[in-house]
């Protein structure tokens, strides 16, 4: 350790030391001369003798400096400086090399930053790896395999399970915050008191609520750091303060730390006690709960899955719908969702691109190596050992990789801005930054790249025997073996390019399919927002309010129509119910789930839905014992295949006598209620005047405008406040934004993969061109001989063209095999779309063949047009 510091100290005064060493030797010479003079020699003779005795002063100095122990570092610095000189001396070569590397390193670094943020960095909970989500598996009843659980199940699981230390439960609980300032809807969750102990997070201020408070339904809340800052200006006396939530006074008992977030969204600002009513705690069909659990130490995920499945069958044994299983998913997987596959595919693609870049550079360096043969030979003749030569070549590669990495980082930063859209809503920290992890990754990648593209050329060039290199022509340095090596490099990069092209093509097809999805509504010039109706608990007042606000909104200039729906289309995957058709036995309901929505009369026409048969809701559909429903095509096709469902009747969960029988009056063409990419499900729509038997509130408002939707937002606010000045508006966005947001992951991944594929193609064709034209240069002499012996230029053209073609075909075959493997791993990115492999593969192959043909034709033509006389003389 000490010696390192001493060396570092020395390094800082390097120049001084050089001067001192020189002075020391000078002093020695004078002393020696003087001594000899005293011994009887003449002055000049004595000085000569002293010099002779010392020998070559430069050598002595050099040997002495070696004792300082910095030789290696110095050599490295010299090699690096030499490398920089090489970079400047061959600007064209360097520009290509650095640009290639910048694309490769920048691409993989940007993807890695997203990969790291979403899949690697620890989640902000204690031992987050041990946290799992537990969902009901309703796939046997046409539901999701990750369906909401019920508080009743949660109670039983807590009591009976053997695999979790504890389970916590939460459900949505939107809240309106009034008091000072505009009324504001905040995203809230109703959670059981033990949520924080399960995930292992403490509040930054105050406390969380107790089991007792939860049981009694105490009016207490825990708020987010963001809400505390935004709404309360970070007031230090926030804990203990009473705030008006849904027109009732709640006491703030705690504030969560900055950046805290938990499922299902990073935007949640308030946590209130779940306080499940005792009746609902026994209701096994009330699917509202999202459950997180912590695995006991030593329990594996698989054990938990088996144990919980068995327990669930036991708990739901008496469910009239039949018993069901559960799905246990690690928290990280739940949060990352589909993004995980997208990121993995992108990371592999970026790695493939980087590999292509390295292969290309290796080839370029090999070709250049022939040019530098003489220089190497001179160095070898002057005594540079092979290790020394390899070190020098590798340092030059490192210099190139370093410059490439710097340029790559410059490219990565804007790419990271785009990739931020890939961060799922359930996760925090949407900002991707060039932190030390990303920088360390880029460094490792750059070094690995330098080794990848520099090692083979360094090995080969350093092997050169000096006498070969010094001979004038430098001919015959590369034998059959080097061709073999360079050719396999070409095959590899072609294969990678084909694989990328094919995968990109598949994604593009799936993406096009997504874009062309019929949403069932017209999304342009459609404004959406939410008016939470928590304060309108009375049914009649609610209906009156909704109709009044729609009336006011419709009166705004520029508004064509307005409607209300319980869940804004394309945004919500849940909101479904079991149903029973007339003449069905009661237990059929256990197998039938349909999405249900409550709408206003003008809703369908406002969003531009299309009718297949029957009618939409009309003013005559008022509160009644025999209400009407509109169903979608999926519902009609599933339940009434080949015939009209009009006039048929159905019923919901409340299957006793009190439940209404609804009559089907219309069939609407499929609306993508659950999201653009989600497959359609049977759906049933009710009109809100007749929706007194459901707790679905028509709080979502859609407004069709003739003008740009953003321009009427403040008019809409005023219109609604003219009906109720305490009514907040939340999540104001256009349908266009909603669609864009949903397509952002596929857009991003398709665009990125497409870009990678194009770059890969470009690099591969440069590679083919480079190697073939190098071969032509190298074999000029041979071409001359062949032509002199009677070969026509056509023969020469064919001979070189054939080689290019063979390489391309070999690469193509390998690439298609690779693509077949890769395509399987990206099935989930295709959003249920089954692409036609054949056209994609054909197009990818054709593109590659064309590009490769051009790349090999140019050098081949050059070879065929050579004048044999000149070719023979080209020594």
């Amino acid at each position: 350790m000490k010696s390192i510091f001493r060396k570092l100290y020395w390094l800082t005064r390097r120049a001084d030391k050089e001067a001192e060493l020189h002075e020391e030797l000078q002093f020695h010479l004078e002393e020696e001369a003087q001594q000899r003079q005293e011994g009887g020699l003449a002055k000049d003779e004595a000085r000569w003798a002293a010099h002779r005795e010392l020998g070559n002063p430069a050598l002595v100095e050099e040997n002495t400096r070696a004792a300082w122990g910095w030789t290696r570092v110095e050599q490295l610095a010299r090699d690096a400086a030499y490398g920089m000189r090489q970079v400047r001396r061959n600007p064209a070569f360097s520009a290509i090399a650095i640009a290639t590397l910048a694309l490769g390193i920048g691409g993989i670094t940007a993807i890695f930053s997203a990969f790291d943020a979403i899949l690697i960095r620890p989640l902000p909970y204690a031992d987050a790896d041990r946290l799992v989500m537990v969902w009901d598996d309703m796939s046997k009843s046409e539901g999701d395999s990750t369906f909401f659980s019920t508080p009743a199940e949660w109670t039983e699981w807590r009591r009976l399970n053997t695999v979790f230390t504890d389970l916590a439960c939460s459900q949505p609980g939107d809240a309106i915050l009034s008091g000072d300032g505009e009324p504001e809807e905040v995203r809230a969750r109703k959670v059981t008191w033990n949520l924080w102990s399960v995930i292992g997070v403490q509040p930054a201020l105050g406390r969380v609520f107790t089991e007792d408070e939860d049981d009694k339904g105490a009016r207490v809340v825990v708020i987010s750091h963001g809400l505390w800052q935004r709404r309360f200006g970070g007031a230090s006396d926030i804990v203990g303060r009473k705030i008006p939530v849904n027109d009732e006074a709640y006491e703030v008992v705690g504030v969560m730390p900055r950046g805290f977030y938990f499922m299902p969204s990073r935007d949640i600002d308030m946590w209130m006690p779940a306080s499940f009513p005792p009746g609902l705690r026994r209701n096994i069909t009330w699917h509202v709960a999202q459950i997180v659990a912590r695995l006991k130490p030593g329990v594996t995920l698989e054990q938990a899955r088996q144990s919980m499945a068995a327990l669930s069958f036991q708990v739901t044994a008496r469910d009239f719908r039949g018993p069901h299983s559960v799905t246990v998913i690690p928290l990280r997987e739940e949060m990352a969702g589909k993004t995980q596959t997208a990121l993995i595919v992108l990371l592999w693609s970026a790695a493939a691109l980087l590999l292509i870049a390295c292969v290309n550079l290796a080839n370029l360096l090999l070709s250049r190596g022939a040019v530098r043969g003489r220089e190497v030979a001179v160095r070898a003749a002057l005594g540079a050992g092979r290790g020394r030569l390899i070190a020098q070549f590798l340092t030059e590669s490192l210099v190139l990789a370093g410059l490439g990495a710097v340029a790559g980082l410059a490219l990565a930063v804007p790419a990271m801005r785009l990739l931020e859209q890939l961060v799922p809503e359930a996760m925090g920290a949407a900002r991707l930054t060039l932190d030390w992890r990303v920088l360390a990754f880029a460094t490792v990648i750059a070094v690995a790249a330098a080794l990848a593209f520099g090692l083979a050329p360094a090995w080969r060039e350093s092997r050169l025997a000096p006498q070969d290199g010094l001979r004038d022509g430098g001919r015959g340095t590369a034998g059959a073996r080097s061709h073999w090596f360079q050719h396999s490099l070409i095959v590899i990069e072609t294969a990678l390019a084909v694989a990328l092209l094919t995968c990109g093509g598949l994604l593009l097809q799936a993406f096009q399919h997504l874009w062309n999805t019929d949403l069932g509504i017209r999304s342009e010039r459609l404004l959406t927002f939410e008016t939470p109706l928590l304060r309108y608990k009375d049914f009649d007042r609610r209906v009156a309010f909704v109709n009044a606000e729609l009336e006011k909104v419709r009166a705004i200039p520029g508004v064509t129509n307005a409607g209300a729906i319980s869940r804004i289309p394309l945004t919500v995957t849940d909101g479904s119910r079991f149903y029973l058709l007339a003449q069905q036995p009661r237990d059929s309901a256990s197998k039938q789930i349909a999405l249900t929505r409550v709408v206003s009369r003008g809703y369908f026409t406002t969003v531009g839905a299309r009718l297949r048969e029957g009618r939409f809701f009309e003013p005559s559909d008022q509160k009644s014992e025999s209400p009407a429903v509109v169903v979608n095509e999926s519902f009609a096709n599933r339940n009434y295949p080949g015939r009209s469902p009009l006039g048929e009747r159905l019923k919901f969960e409340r299957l006793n006598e009190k439940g209404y029988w609804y009559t089907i009056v219309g069939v609407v063409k499929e609306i993508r209620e659950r999201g653009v990419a989600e497959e359609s499900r049977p759906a049933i729509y009710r009109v809100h005047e007749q929706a007194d038997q459901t707790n679905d509130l028509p709080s979502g408002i859609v407004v069709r405008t003739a003008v740009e939707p953003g321009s009427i937002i403040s008019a809409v606010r005023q219109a609604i406040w003219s009906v109720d000045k305490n009514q907040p508006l939340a999540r104001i966005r256009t349908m266009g934004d909603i669609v864009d947001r949903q397509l952002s992951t596929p857009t991003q991944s398709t665009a990125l993969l497409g870009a990678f594929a194009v770059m890969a193609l470009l690099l591969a064709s440069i590679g083919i061109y480079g190697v073939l034209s190098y071969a032509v240069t190298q074999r000029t002499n041979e071409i001359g001989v062949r032509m002199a012996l009677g070969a026509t230029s056509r023969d020469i053209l064919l001979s070189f063209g054939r080689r290019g073609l063979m390489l391309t075909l070999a690469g193509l075959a390998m690439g298609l095999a690779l693509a077949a493997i890769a395509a399987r791993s990206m099935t989930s990115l295709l959003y249920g779309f089954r692409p036609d492999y054949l056209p994609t593969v054909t197009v990818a192959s054709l593109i590659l063949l064309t590009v490769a043909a051009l790349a090999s034709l140019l050098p081949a033509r050059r070879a065929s047009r050579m004048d044999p006389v000149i070719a023979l003389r080209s020594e």
Partner: protein
Amino acid sequence: MRGNAPSRIELLQGTLDLLILRTLLAGPAHGHAIATHIQRTSEDLLQVETGSLYPALHRLEAKGWIAPFWELSEKGKRARFYRLTPLGRKQLAAERSKWDAFSRAMALVLNPIDQEGL
């Protein structure tokens, strides 16, 4: 080189370090003085090559066994003097006992019966 008189002995590998350290035990000295001292004390049998002296001095310095300082020589010129450090003193003791053992062993092997014959 100052001739190769047959009476002179080539230094054994590694012995120069020991000689330098021993010389400096008597007190600080500059490079030329060290060389002269070794030569004189060995009755001109040992010849220190300048080409190896200075690398050796700098190597010992890098190891922390000797420490340099600038001072005026007896003739009033600025010279780089070296002195033994405590670490160097320890090293000298270690090297010396190693050398003693070595030379005793050499003597035993070379003169198995008596030494009068020499």
